[in-house]
């Protein structure tokens, strides 16, 4: 795979021509680890690719820590549920890192039904000088051994190996949409459309159900869970969002089953914006706590909202991501784009938020200055190491030279998954099957 400062992942299929990108290479999740040293991506083919940041070298200061491939492994395979005659997709829905506690790295990856804990470790030494077998591994005839020696560790080429340490299966009837590691680092939760389960990392054959919104009669179903996350510091608190545009905050100390929320966040609907698709566009596709734990950010189809945990009746900030699509909802419904689930991320200091859009555009909003910018992740429109030029969508009237009109937007090029380095201004943007990594300009 070729790497640049703006590192891209080239389709790992046989043909390197990008027009032949296979569907299996479509990136479905992107996540930095807690230090930002590693960046994991999952794709529709069930593979996980981990990039590692190069150590900065004094010789080449302008190449500040590029990301290179560190490890690639097949996390999930397609499965078949014989009872229901359904195929279970191998697509990786989410990856979440565990904080590093020893030399190895641990991450959780999940598809629709099964969560797996992977250990990624390095091996750079190997033992030599066995007594009972020779260097090729063949057993030696014990009667030929005349002396004993102590095996020694000798350096070898670095090998990174990934091993599945735990498999958490058979706990979800519906499709898993989120996983979240608790701040106690001992438990994590997995959420599907109707239920949320709490797991202990050490125990794979049991989980606790902590939220269950399945109605007794499925015909009365009105909303599903769309995302869930633990509070970054309070191990008893978590939030989950729904398809109705509401967020519930739950405290696990109140009861074993957290069906009753501690807080309920909902903004009253603006009646002037009512349309056939009001319900769809209010469905929340992602919810993220700020690093401080004071705010939550939610993404619905057209907006990103920031909520203060202390105020439930409305968000404190609302940002329009691509409001020019409001008049096109019917077409977007027809081509299924209205169901796209965009994610949103905070920067390390919670001052900037970022989310994706169409035409390979992604947007950043500075919460303090209230300025926003639209950038494009595309090979054609940006050269390596060139500064990204802000883009603008023309909504009507005369189109200026550099603007793009709404009708020329390419809706097949969508940026659903992005990630922000925990402490630096480095972002990873997944554009279909390509991964772009952008860094702050280096002087």
């Amino acid at each position, binding site marked *: 795979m070729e790497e640049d400062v703006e590192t891209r992942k080239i389709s790992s299929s046989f043909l390197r021509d990008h027009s032949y990108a296979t569907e299996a290479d479509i990136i479905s999740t992107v996540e930095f680890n807690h230090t930002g040293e590693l960046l994991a991506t999952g794709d529709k083919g069930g593979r996980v690719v981990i990039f590692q940041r190069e150590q900065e070298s004094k010789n080449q200061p302008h190449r500040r820590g590029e990301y290179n491939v560190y490890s690639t492994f097949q996390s999930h395979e397609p499965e078949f549920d014989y009872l*229901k005659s*359904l195929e*279970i997709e191998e697509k990786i829905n989410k990856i979440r890192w565990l904080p590093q506690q020893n030399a190895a790295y641990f991450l959780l990856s999940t598809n629709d039904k099964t969560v797996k804990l992977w250990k990624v470790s390095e091996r750079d030494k190997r033992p030599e000088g066995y007594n009972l077998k020779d260097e090729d591994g063949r057993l030696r005839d014990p009667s030929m051994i005349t002396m004993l020696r102590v095996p020694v560790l000798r350096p070898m080429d670095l090998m990174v190996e990934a091993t599945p340490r735990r498999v958490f299966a058979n706990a979800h009837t519906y*499709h898993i949409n989120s996983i979240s590691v608790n701040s106690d680092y001992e438990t994590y939760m997995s959420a599907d459309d109707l239920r949320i389960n709490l797991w202990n990392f050490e125990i794979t054959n049991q989980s606790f159900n902590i939220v269950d919104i399945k109605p007794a009669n499925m015909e*009365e179903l009105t909303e599903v869970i769309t995302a869930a996350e633990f509070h970054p510091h309070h191990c008893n608190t978590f939030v989950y969002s729904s*398809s109705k545009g509401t967020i519930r905050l739950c405290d696990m100390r109140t009861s074993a089953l957290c069906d009753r929320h501690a807080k309920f966040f909902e903004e009253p609907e603006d009646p002037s914006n009512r349309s*056939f698709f009001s319900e769809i566009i209010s469905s929340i596709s992602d919810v993220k706590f700020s690093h401080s734990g004071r705010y939550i950010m939610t993404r619905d189809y057209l907006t990103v909202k920031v909520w203060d945990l202390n105020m439930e009746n409305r968000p404190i900030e609302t940002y329009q991501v691509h409001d020019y699509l409001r008049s096109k909802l019917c077409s977007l*419904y027809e081509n299924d784009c209205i169901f796209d689930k965009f994610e949103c991320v905070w920067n390390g200091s919670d001052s900037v938020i970022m989310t994706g859009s169409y035409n390979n555009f992604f947007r950043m909003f500075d919460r303090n200055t209230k300025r926003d910018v639209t950038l494009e992740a595309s090979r054609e429109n940006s050269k390596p190491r060139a500064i990204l030029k802000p883009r603008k969508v023309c909504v009507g009237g005369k189109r200026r030279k550099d603007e793009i009109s709404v009708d020329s937007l390419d809706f097949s090029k969508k940026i659903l998954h992005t990630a922000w380095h925990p402490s630096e201004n480095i972002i990873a943007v997944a554009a279909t099957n390509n991964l772009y990594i952008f860094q702050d300009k280096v002087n």
Partner: protein
Amino acid sequence: MEFKLEAHRIVSISLGKIYSARGQRGGLKLHKNLLVSLVLRSARQVYLSEPGCPPEPPPAACGPPEEESPPCTTAWAAGEPPPPPQDEAVRSGPRLPGADCESPRSRRCCCGCSCCCAAAAGGEANRGDCATAGAAAPPPPHCPRKRSAGERGQAGSPVKKPRREEEEEPPPPPPPGEQEDMETGNVASLISIFGSSFSGLLSKEPKGRRRTPLDGNEAAAGTPAEAAAEPGQICCDEPVLRTLNPWSTAIVAF
């Protein structure tokens, strides 16, 4: 009027989505299907609440049904009141519980049916379906709503007949307490023409008949695994056949 056309278009798009979701890899997506059914419900509500007639391309085709009473009563040969809306057997093509016999309603059905027969439909399909629409219950729309589950069994034998044939009709969608009755009528005819066994839009199905897995992910939104009745079979009720013109019968058979 544009709203009605728009609503009608959205209804047909939604049905298409639900139908095609059956074959999706990875099983039915509960969330997406829930959203689609919500849109479908909104569109149907608008469609029904809008007064007047949408300008329908083949106006002539809707001629006969506009005289409400005759088609209404003849189609319901047995003269029995329409089965309660909750009975999904009612969802077969001809029965539009609660649907008015007014021309707008009939026209609507025309639109609905013609839309779904879009590919091949000519204007004539409308007439047949209009007739079926006209065959809807003489009682006002609200009547079926009042029917309780207990009345289900009281429907006469003609009800049982379509029931058997409709075994594959799966359960309806989410909307709680929503009276699916009349709206589902024309929807049902669309569905039956697709010949699909998807759930979702039809009314609540009697428990015994529902072939749901214990916790089927698809419970609310459709059951891809369930075998569909063959396309066309559902529509082969006598009342339907009686009222459909030959052209639409061909479509139904497809």
